[in-house]
């Protein structure tokens, strides 16, 4: 009996202490894969700190969910009727969640109109904007200045042929030095970046047009170039994307093409090496454009209570202010959608030269996901990369491979 009484007293004390605090405080739940990523994590924390300072009594619970299970985790939550308050999504997967996301045009119409053109990606079939773009990007090329100098290469290649030649010159297998890092192992996403970059870099066009036309000539040119690059021996075979990035950070790759988020990985290089890892536009960027697209976005779930809803929109508006767009660029090291205009002329190059390249690439970006397959991009990616891998890595006949890719895409478009 004494034990029961003690327990009751303890419980009452606990309730007395915690419930009033809970009743006063509003908590906005904000899960994100970027909660542990260097660069973006720091930015979000700074933004959250400022938001909480401006909104006393409001706390944002910012916590990590690993990227490889992120979409699945969010899907489970939405399907279970328990979405987070601030919905952070990889923009490519927006369509899976469309039925659960609130149209934002009424609240953010003015902002949306001034935002980068890639914001159009976030419009659903009914013409409503269901997400606010946090990052749109263009692919960039990392190069190792030291390796270029050792190989006697004076300038960063600006054509695709020059890139191939430079990669071959840099390669020294005995020393474990490679001219180019290509991911040739993995699942359906194997070298999809490279395919996108080369197809647009060589021709200015995607393999598939926005209205579903399969461009055989673009496919052939892309396949032949990538095969030449792989056959040149300038890249080790069987590497995943993660290993490619490690090779770059260790100073063992001359060139590598990735999104602007590669900056955060470069910052992990040894201090003596880091200044020599630089960014440049991909070859022929100004003539043909740069493959790019949407990265991630924020949304509001349908049915959120009015108080939390208002706070989430305030959070997004704060993110979109010039001050915080500038901080996004400087802290996260990414080309903020607000554009480089928030920096004074020359300021960006002085503060962080690589950022100037990222901004330029974003401005030249050509969306590498054709509109007709935006809801089925993973399947489209497989439809193209598998036949191309057969040609590039296993020497399959190009004509057969082209036909296979064409029929894969046709079947996919017919499915939907």
């Amino acid at each position, binding site marked *: 009996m004494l034990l029961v009484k003690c327990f009751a007293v303890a419980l009452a004390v606990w309730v007395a202490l915690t419930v009033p605090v809970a009743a006063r405080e509003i908590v906005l739940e904000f899960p994100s894969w970027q909660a542990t990523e260097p660069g973006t994590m720091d930015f979000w924390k700074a933004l959250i700190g400022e938001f909480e300072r401006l909104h006393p009594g409001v706390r944002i619970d910012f916590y990590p969910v690993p990227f490889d299970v992120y*979409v*699945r985790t969010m*899907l489970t939550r939405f*399907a279970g009727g328990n979405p987070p308050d601030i919905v952070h999504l990889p923009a490519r*997967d927006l369509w*899976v969640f469309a039925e659960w996301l609130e149209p934002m045009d009424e609240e953010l119409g003015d902002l949306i109109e001034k935002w980068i053109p890639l914001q159009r990606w976030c419009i659903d079939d009914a013409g409503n904007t269901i997400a606010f773009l946090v990052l749109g990007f263009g692919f960039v090329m990392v190069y190792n200045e030291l390796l270029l100098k050792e190989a006697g290469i004076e300038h960063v290649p600006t054509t695709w042929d020059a890139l191939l030649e430079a990669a071959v010159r840099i390669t020294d297998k005995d020393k474990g030095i490679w001219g180019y890092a290509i991911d*040739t*192992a*993995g*699942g*359906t996403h*194997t070298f999809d970046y490279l395919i996108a970059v080369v197809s647009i870099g060589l021709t200015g066009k995607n393999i598939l047009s926005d209205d579903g036309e399969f461009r055989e000539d673009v496919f052939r040119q892309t396949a032949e170039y990538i095969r030449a690059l792989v056959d040149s021996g300038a890249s*080790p*075979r*069987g590497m995943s994307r993660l290993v490619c990035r490690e090779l770059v950070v260790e100073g063992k790759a001359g060139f590598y093409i990735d999104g602007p988020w590669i900056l955060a990985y470069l910052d992990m290089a040894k201090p003596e090496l880091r200044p020599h890892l630089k960014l440049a536009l991909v070859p022929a960027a100004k003539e043909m454009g740069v493959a790019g697209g949407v990265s991630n976005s924020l949304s509001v779930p349908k049915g959120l209570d009015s108080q939390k809803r208002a706070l989430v929109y305030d959070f997004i508006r704060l993110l979109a202010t010039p001050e915080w767009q500038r901080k996004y660029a400087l802290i996260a090291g990414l080309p903020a959608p607000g554009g480089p205009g928030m920096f004074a002329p020359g300021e960006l190059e002085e503060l962080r030269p690589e950022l100037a390249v990222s901004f330029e690439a974003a401005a030249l970006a050509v969306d590498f996901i054709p509109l007709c397959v935006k809801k*089925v991009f*993973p*399947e489209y990616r497989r439809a193209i990369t*598998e036949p191309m*891998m*057969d040609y590039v*890595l*296993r020497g399959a006949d190009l004509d057969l491979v082209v036909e296979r890719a064409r029929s894969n895409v046709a079947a996919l478009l017919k*499915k939907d």
Partner: protein
Amino acid sequence: MGRKAGRRAHNSWGAAPLIEESPVMKLRRQMGMSRSARERLFALLFILPAAFLVFSTVVYPIFVIIQGSFHTDRILRLRYDSPMTLKNYEAFFSDIRSARVLAVTALYMAIATGCAFLLGFIFSLLLNQRFRGRGIARGLALLPWVVPASIAALLWLMLIDAEIGPVNALIARTGLLPPRTSWLVDQTTAFAGVCLASIWKTFPFFTIVLLAGLQAIPQELYEAAEVDGAGWWARLRHITIPGLRSVIAVGFMLVGLWTLRDFTIIFVMTEGGPAGATETLGLHAYVHAFQFFRMGYAAAVGVITLIVAIGLAAISLRLGGKQFVG
């Protein structure tokens, strides 16, 4: 039987009965149940929690999957607005890729299970002999089974690595493969890589069960055979293998089912690539569920996998014979 010493209750006359009636006894009396009925009732009450657990964690999810397989929705739901359809099954059986998935699955099961059995059998025969350090040897032989599947996959990725992998270097010395072979780039070597990892992981199971089976075979049979002049091979064919028949059937069934549903090793090593060369039914379902978000189709693949698994189990039970059924 319900008697509480020292406590008495009173009936309506005020007289105390000799035995106080417990609530259970009172219930029995009120319900007018026979003894056997009461025993059945209590048995049911004991089973109910476990039955509820099985229903909620096994039966109901299977029902949700089966129901989902008849809808083309991108996600699974508890209730559907759309009518039921066979489109997912039609899509599976009309897709050329599905034929390859089934072939890869069958080949993977056959090779991984068969080789794991052979290796396990050899080890069980060796570990059944008397030698110094046998206990330690038995423990070491079980180690691969203890290692988590994801770790086993990562380990084998290193072992077959083109630059630093010792397995790669060893095989290159035999001339079977050129040096510095990138296993994961070629479809054949990628398939061989996942098979090797799976065999390494599962052969200890065969070792254990066959070792137990060997020890159950009477030694007198071997002694009698020796006296009759039977050699090693004859003893193996006529005593050992028949004696292990039911154990082998069980082993094949269990390991076959494990390889049928194996996901971790393949996903970590190849993600089903290159170009679908290692895409089994499990990977196929995963890719469609969590990469393509076609969960209705993935549910259909899951149902097909379940039917294959039931068929496999039925065949194994039949082949195991009366000894297995008991």
